[in-house]
């Protein structure tokens, strides 16, 4: 491809274009559609967190060990786990995808970095998020930790 390198052409185009709108594509859809997309993204995000959590437990790894295996910052992993609105970096998601042996593009969608108009993908994410809700009772260790933390919160 040979682009025009003539300064006069560039100057003329600059004057004509003048930083105006040039967008090509579809018109604005209803604002309600945007809100619906946000809700679907939340369901996918829950599935992403569950997937991370179950994978870590499947491999019997602590969060620290998991972060080392993934070569991902522990703080970022904790953000993903605990903050619904947190958007992981594409680099982190790529590393997680590599560890899980799944296509990075699928995890981009699940993590909320990308969107997809695929009903089955969304439904599968929703089903996974719902099915993988833990029903196991807390271990004595978890129970103690929770009790201690609640006590701490009450005393503050």
């Amino acid at each position: 491809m040979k682009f025009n390198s003539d300064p006069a052409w560039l100057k003329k185009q600059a004057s004509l274009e003048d930083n105006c709108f040039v967008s090509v594509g579809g018109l604005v859809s209803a604002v309600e559609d945007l809100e619906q997309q946000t809700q679907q993204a939340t369901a996918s995000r829950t599935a992403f967190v569950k997937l991370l959590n179950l994978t870590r437990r499947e491999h019997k790894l602590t969060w620290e060990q998991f972060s080392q295996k993934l070569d991902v910052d522990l703080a970022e992993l904790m953000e993903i786990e605990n903050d619904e609105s947190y958007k992981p970096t594409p680099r982190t998601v790529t590393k997680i995808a590599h560890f899980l042996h799944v296509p990075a593009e699928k995890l981009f969608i699940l993590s909320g970095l990308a969107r997809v108009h695929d009903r089955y993908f969304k439904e599968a994410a929703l089903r996974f998020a719902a099915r993988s809700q833990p029903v196991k009772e807390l271990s004595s260790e978890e129970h103690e930790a929770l009790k201690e933390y609640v006590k701490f919160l009450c005393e503050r």
Partner: protein
Amino acid sequence: MKTRVHIIDNTTGQAVEAEIFDEVTVEHFIETQQEWRPIVLKAARQLAARGSHQLIPQHFHWDWTTKAPELKVLANAFYGIRYDNQLQGLMKIETVGQFCSCRLPEQVDKALVYVDYIEVAPWNLKVLMNALGEKPRYNVIGSRLIEAAVLKSKEEDCKGRIGLHSLPMTESFYIKTCRMTPVGRDPAKQNLLWLEYTPEQAENFLTGAR
């Protein structure tokens, strides 16, 4: 493909060397969502608050990440312009598909390259930057993308013929700046205006002849 092209830096009025490329990935789409969209929405809110509803960009809701599956379609090509370590503009074109045929009577049914999507980074758009009390940074991004589409059309033996559906607020850019021919409203695409280049018009755009 990676090629150096000049764009204009508005702060100095001088040409600067940017890079136009076609190896667009899903990471670029994510970049638009993370870097562009918040600014577009912020400016749109400002315009709405001022009652300037007619200036609210008609593409404020776009999400390039939904285009990720289309990266694998051979009939599609994506082009990006990068400068200052930031994506300055992005375009998707189709070489095969329902909109890849000419409609102008003089070239009806001939193959063309269809420009499906173009978006320029919000910091390069005057209306949005004015709404945020700033000045647009770089100019000629839209022209460079259209130039890439015309060059691709020539590569595809379409002789520079391209077609697109313009949003209402961008019609003047395609009619007055690019000098494309407005053919008519298309009921199959939200009644948007369909515009086309003949080979002669495309050549005039490439060379700057009027």
